């Protein structure tokens, strides 16, 4: 900075002091006034020093951004001290690409969307990140339209979840989780859906394999039957199971007399209902996975001396394992969220969804919310597993383990001319 600029800056600083002294009298306490003055002075300095005066447009934008913050915090939100904080951040971050966008999203969501500010900030930043990415890649109009429309749907599901989570305090959660009946319900949910998934894997994977590999009469009908559980309304599943295996039917009595198993109001009943409703997800997942494995790989294994069962276990199953695991997670998630049929078949002992409904009808929304958040947290591991799946697969693990004994000396590689 040369001498002339220093004089110019000094003059503007004195002018700013005068304007503030006149307008802020009685609005702010002196300490607050000082804070605001210092932040404004910083913004002025940054405006003169780092925004090149030759770039007229750039300077205009800088001023516009300042005015926006001023309107948001000083006029709309009436928070002069927040204004001071944001002005400092603004002046400091003006030339950091991208950061300024997040700052304004933060400012807008806190000043204008008071009760929903956190979810709005989270979603808007996400949106902004995507748009920035699209613009930087010159992705074009079609991509932008698809992105915006897709994001709307995404927001519609994510916003309520975020809001529910932010509305629930940590104290609510700990209070909720310490209750015995809550712990029982969540344990019952996790255990029963895990048992159901295990049973489905044991029975569904062979079924999926047969459906994919063999062309038999009635295959089309079987293919439709697999999807039936998705189409049937949930309470109907409960009614059907009770009609078949209820305490007053002969099949139900047989189970009770010889195995001591009761369907109505027991874990067995819960598992039966969960198996019924969530089996299609695993079977479909496994079918897609098996379809992707070329049949001739099994033929090749057989000509090499592998019994068909061994060929299946050593080649087909490892290759399909990723898809099967994916199906497992979907199936597990579907089982743990089952509600409709369980209200019919086993209202007590209550699984977590049934308990949530029960508490909601008895005590209302605010009581049911912490338990809902807890259930979401429990289900999160499935979400994490789905994410991890994209990079990790059991098949790749096999290969890597197999590499070790044959690690060759790289020097032995022939040089390619």
């Amino acid at each position, binding site marked *: 900075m040369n001498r002339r600029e220093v004089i110019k800056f000094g003059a503007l600083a004195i002018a700013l002091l005068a304007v503030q002294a006149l307008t802020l009298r009685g609005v702010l306490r002196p300490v607050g006034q000082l804070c605001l003055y210092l932040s404004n002075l910083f913004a002025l300095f940054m405006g003169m020093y780092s925004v090149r005066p030759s770039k007229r447009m750039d300077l205009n934008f800088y001023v516009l951004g300042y005015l926006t913050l001023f309107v948001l915090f000083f006029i709309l939100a009436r928070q002069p001290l927040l204004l001071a904080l944001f002005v400092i951040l603004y002046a400091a971050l003006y030339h950091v690409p991208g950061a300024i966008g997040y700052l304004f999203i933060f400012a807008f969501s806190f000043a204008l969307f008071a009760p929903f500010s956190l979810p709005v900030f989270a979603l808007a930043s996400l949106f902004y990140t995507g748009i920035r990415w699209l613009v930087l890649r010159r992705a074009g109009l079609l991509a932008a339209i698809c992105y915006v429309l897709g994001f709307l749907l995404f927001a519609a599901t994510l916003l309520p979840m975020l809001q529910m989570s932010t509305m629930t305090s940590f104290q609510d959660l700990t209070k909720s989780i310490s209750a015995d009946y809550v712990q029982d319900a969540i344990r019952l949910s996790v255990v029963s859906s895990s048992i159901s998934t295990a049973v489905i894997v044991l029975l569904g994977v062979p079924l999926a394999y047969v459906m994919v590999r063999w062309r038999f009469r009635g295959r089309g009908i079987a293919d439709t039957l697999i999807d039936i559980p998705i189409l049937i309304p949930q309470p109907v599943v409960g009614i059907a199971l009770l009609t078949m295996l209820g305490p007053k039917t002969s099949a139900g009595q047989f189970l009770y007399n010889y195995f001591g198993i009761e369907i109505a109001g027991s874990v067995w009943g819960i598992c039966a209902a969960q198996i019924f409703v969530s089996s299609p997800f695993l079977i479909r997942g496994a079918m897609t996975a098996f379809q992707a494995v070329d049949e*001739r*790989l099994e*033929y090749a294994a057989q*000509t*090499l*001396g592998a019994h068909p069962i061994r060929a299946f276990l050593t080649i087909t199953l490892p290759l399909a394992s990723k898809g099967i695991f994916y199906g497992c997670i979907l199936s597990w998630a579907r089982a743990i969220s089952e509600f409709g049929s369980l209200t019919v078949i086993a209202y007590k002992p209550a699984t977590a969804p049934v308990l949530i409904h029960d508490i909601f009808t008895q005590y209302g929304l605010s009581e049911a919310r912490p338990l809902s958040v807890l259930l979401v947290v429990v289900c999160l591991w499935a979400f994490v597993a789905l994410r991890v799946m994209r990079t990790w697969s059991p*098949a790749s693990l*096999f290969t890597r383990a197999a*590499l070790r004994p044959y690690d*060759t000396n790289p020097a032995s590689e022939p040089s390619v001319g």
Partner: protein
Amino acid sequence: MIQIQHLSRAWGDFSLKDICLCAQPKEYLVILGPTGCGKTLLLETVAGIHRSYSGTVRIAGEDMATVPPYRRSIGFVYQKSMLFPNLAVAQNIEYGLKMRRTPRRERRARVEFLAGLLGIGYLLARDVTALSGGEMQKVALARALAIEPDILLLDEPLSPLDQASKDTLLEEIRKLHDQLGTTTLHVTHDHNIARRLADRIALLSNGSLVQVGEAAEVFRYPVSDFAAEFVRAPNILLGEAVKTENEVVQINCDGFSLRASSRLTGPVGVTIPPEEVRLGVSAPDGDHMNVLRGDIERIENQAGLATVTFRVNENRLVATVPRAEITQMLGQGATHVYAEFAPEVVHVFRRESAE
């Protein structure tokens, strides 16, 4: 080694019809035929993957009707190599040995022996998905040979490759066969591959065998117009054969006729080996049975020899003559030639498409 007798099998709209085929020990038998003629189906039936067929398949004298594929001693290489993507290269090669519970040390020795033979030692630790087409086929070949099979079945192993790797792998296969002497059934649609590898050739068309014989014989004496065209026999002419005296027939093509030693009459085709055709600028003196006048179209020079393409009416014929001879002819400013060949060199076959 392999005896296939009266093998028939339906597969959807397609069927194999009454195939009888034998391969001797250490023989390299190429099954040649156009795409979709049932070659792969035939191989998979020999391998035992398709088990419902009529007729018998014998391997080493034993009827294979009740023997499942994993008890047959067979190496199979698919067109798309079909390596197991969940296993590394070395694990792929030793897979068959593992299934046979071969001790680890022997397995490893065999893998390294084959890798050395095929020059793929540097690949052993790699992921199979990271290989080039040629490397994949070599690994597939090593995997099939690891179990020391009685029979090697190759299903178009060269067709997905570019010309350079095709040539390399072809040489590798020939070398392997010389060293190991495994009886091989090689299926292909490429007559060049058949020409370079085969001891014997079986020509397959639309599910049935057209011709089986020594490689040279199939190329020199095709039995039908399909066979002649498929193996790219030179100088194919079509016409009607009429009987004359002394076991010589006169064949009338459109606009000219020629004579050949044969007993066939009716719609026939002929093929004339280019090296048996003699050329001259004027009609040859003396008594010749076959003299055709043609216009010179193209001359290609090879070492010492020239291939002359000339046109007789609508038919294009070629002759291979010493290069000096053709230089002399061209020196006289010739645009046409007289071609002369003996009736004995003309191979006559029946025209099936005319029936």
